């Protein structure tokens, strides 16, 4: 529960189960980031539920000393919807992957977002099916060679954040498994009341090693990563470059910032509630632009479970549950000894 605060330490969030991911997997870093962040949120392990689908990422709940439900492939958002509707007080986290959330479970991802169920959705994107030994995934780039695409994949990849925003998400963010910025993204997601969608670039060291290296590498991060912060100008390359609006083409563009005067360069200030800019940010082509990271969009609106609870309450108002009355409803008649009577 977002409002409740409980004093815990990282240790309180670790289970006694042996972690079974491949050595060096990006999942370890994400797990630690979450376990480290939970005490800072004042979260209560007993009130926290991690729900996952199927895939490497979906083993996550087994390693969190909370309530956890490892469900079936793609269906975590649907299970989580039932969990939350039945008990809106619970703090619900959904753990999923690119195949789980965007292929087999694309339908549920769309609907949990547009309904705006209050939960955090962490999509571990490694652009590959790891647990089934390396087939290309719906986020794999065109031409990805894999056991199922020996001549390279030919289909266009899905963009998780664009999908989320298009589905009606009110919170969209990006992080990188090993990047120190991840906990802040998690905190912002948790603070957001409603469905908070987080794409985490996760390095599958066995089947898709370093696929994000071109923007995730520390060495070149300054020029390849655009970390967004609400109310701050969109700057990268140590403030020497920024993002401005291309008014003629209604797109974004990279501009040079001279002597730190970003205003003169036309660099825009990040407004997390600006949905139009968010649409541009999720679509920014990497290469021409840096990778947009951090909280891209955050503009809450009423949540699904609160609307359901409210309607249940209103519809029940002034009505007393009376089972005998319920079964006796409709047009009835009484049979007395010797015949019926209206």
């Amino acid at each position: 529960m977002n409002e409740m605060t409980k004093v815990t330490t990282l240790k309180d969030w670790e289970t006694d189960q042996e972690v079974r991911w491949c050595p060096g997997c990006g999942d370890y870093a994400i797990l630690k980031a979450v376990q480290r962040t939970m005490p800072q949120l004042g979260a209560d392990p007993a009130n926290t539920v991690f729900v996952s689908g199927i895939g490497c990422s979906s083993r996550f709940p087994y390693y969190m000393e909370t309530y956890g439900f490892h469900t079936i492939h793609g269906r975590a958002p649907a299970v989580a919807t039932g969990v939350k509707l039945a008990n809106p007080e619970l703090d619900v986290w959904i753990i999923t992957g690119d195949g789980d959330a965007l292929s087999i479970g694309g339908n549920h991802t769309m609907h949990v977002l547009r309904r705006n169920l209050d939960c955090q959705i962490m999509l571990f994107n490694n652009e590959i099916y790891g647990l089934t030994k390396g087939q290309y995934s719906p986020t794999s780039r065109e031409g990805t060679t894999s056991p199922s695409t020996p001549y390279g994949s030919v289909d266009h990849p899905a963009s998780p954040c664009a999908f989320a925003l298009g589905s009606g998400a009110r919170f969209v963010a990006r992080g990188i498994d090993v990047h120190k910025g991840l906990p802040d993204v998690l905190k912002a997601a948790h603070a957001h009341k409603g469905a908070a969608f987080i794409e985490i670039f996760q390095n599958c060291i066995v089947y898709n090693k370093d696929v994000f290296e071109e923007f995730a590498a520390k060495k070149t991060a300054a020029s390849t990563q655009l970390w967004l912060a609400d109310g701050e100008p969109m700057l990268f390359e140590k403030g020497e470059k920024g993002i401005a609006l291309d008014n003629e083409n209604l797109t974004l563009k990279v501009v040079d910032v001279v002597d730190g005067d970003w205003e003169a360069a036309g660099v825009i200030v990040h407004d997390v509630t600006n949905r139009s800019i968010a649409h541009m940010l999720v679509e920014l082509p990497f290469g021409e632009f840096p990778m947009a990271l951090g909280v891209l969009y955050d503009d809450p609106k009423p949540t699904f479970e609160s609307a359901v609870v409210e309607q249940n309450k209103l519809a029940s108002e002034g009505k007393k549950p009376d089972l005998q009355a319920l079964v006796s409803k409709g047009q009835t008649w009484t049979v007395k000894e010797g015949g019926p009577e209206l």
Partner: protein
Amino acid sequence: MASAAEVNTGKTDAVPEAVVVRFAGDSGDGMQLTGGQFTLSTALSGNDLATFPDFPAEIRAPQGTLFGVSAFQINFGSREINTAGDQPDVLVAMNPAALKTNVEALKPGGLIIADSGEFGKRNLDKAKYETNPLEDGSLAKWQLLSFDISQLTLDAVKPFGLGNKEALRCKNMWTLGLALWMFDRERQPIIDWLNQKFAKKPDIAEANIAALNAGHAYGETAELSGPMQKVHIPAAPSEPGLYRTITGAEAISLGLVAGAQLANLPMFFGGYPITPASAILHHLARYKEYGVTTFQAEDEIAAIASAIGASYSGSLGVTSSSGPGIALKGEAMGLAIMTELPLVVVNSQRGGPSTGLPTKTEQSDLYQAVYGRNGDAPMPVIAACSPADAFDCAIEAVRIAVQYMTPVMLLTDGYIANAAEPWAVPDMSDYEAFPVQHMTEAQDGGFKPYGRDEKLARPWVKPGTPDLMHRIGGIEKAVDTGHIDYAPANHQEMTEIRRNKVLGVADSIGDQQVDMGDAGGKLAIVGWGSTYGPIHQAVRRAREAGHDVSHIHIRNIWPMPKNLGELLKSYDRILVPEMNTGQLKTVLRDQYLVDAKPLNKISGQPFLISEILAAIEENLV
């Protein structure tokens, strides 16, 4: 029907015991409404009854076509009625297509009432009649009454200034008025209903009432010769008490609400629209004050997955569908079996496979219910035999689900879901509560998420409970701890525990009874589900004719009652009538090594009593 006296054939001194009437018309003619209201008035007059709504899958099929015909059959009488009747005594045909598709079912000498106003060339062509059957003598083996119901309706509603189309919509009420006259029924309940239904459109209400009255007056005053006579069917003897009519969908909904209340749990219903199961979602959406939350999910899988999530959170999770949707839910049922969470899955069966016959009835999902999941995935299965029985079956499904921590499948079918019958309103204080206790403190010796009670059920711990955090999922669980465990011996043990837990349900369901006849003898007719009615009546008639035959009705399809095998072996022969190719028959053979013989009907229509009676006679030779 053999026992139905000759209606309307001049023998007015013989009061019939039962009459079968079928209303047939275009799917836009309001035949289901007419039938429904006639049912209500029949129930109010104290007759026992059973109905059979038979409508096309298309909402508004092209007017006048053969495939657009919608029919509603009702069997009512002064004695116990279990079926909608084999052959109608009276057929009301609102157009040529309705006549063509239904007249062959009419019993010889039966009465046809036809709207001659609809028998123009266009409609005759659509029904593929070369000549007008009302005039060419082809209906000679029946009695025919044809008059221009369309024109008579237009005349009756003229004062209300409706357009031609609106005015003709009142035809069904005119017809109902005539039927009410024929069977000596009160008009007032229908008038009350019309006033209520059209409260915001008083002119429409008035027009419909005028049509109803005109139809009634037509019967009373018109010089109807011969066949058209008033028939009074006396009330059926029934136990004193409060009665109402109920459809299967209503009964299941009420039963689920009652079950949740008896379990002292809030209910969560996840559903997705599908014929003929949607009505359950519609009913439950109105019961919020009973702690019912309904969720129209994005698909069948989300419907069951959300229900499983809600059960995990401590509510009673329920989902419902029909065959194709149940197929989609299969994997999630496996999850509920593996995680041992309570869940009720209602399957309103329809004709299959694939989309099959969406609005027709069939019993072909028994294999799917008992066996239709990957892995060794046992699950209790209960089948309702009638709308009224569905109420108790739903409560029973809830009880088994929460006491054994297991998903339970409740089978009904399109016939039960849509059909109506009188229901003696139960006294809810007669039902024993089975309140659920969620675990809030660890067992002695430490918390074991997969520890067991005497029923082999594991504890139900709601998230939010301090100190009992644990993880569940679809991967094989270690005995007691519930940790991931792929060890060979553990999987063997867990598979056996899951099987034995479900088999143990048989300890709580009591012995199999013989519905009619003796325990042992020459022939047992063994049925399940909605074939109850025709089997029961057929066995009754065979026994009246002196045959040694008994009726066994199985409600608990899985696990079956413990004495069933011994009981079956006490008969020389076993005949299993089913609306499938022999699914219960196969299970009985497998479980008990008995020579059960099939009697199959897969036409989308319920069995006729005469069909089962003929099979009984064949098997007694």
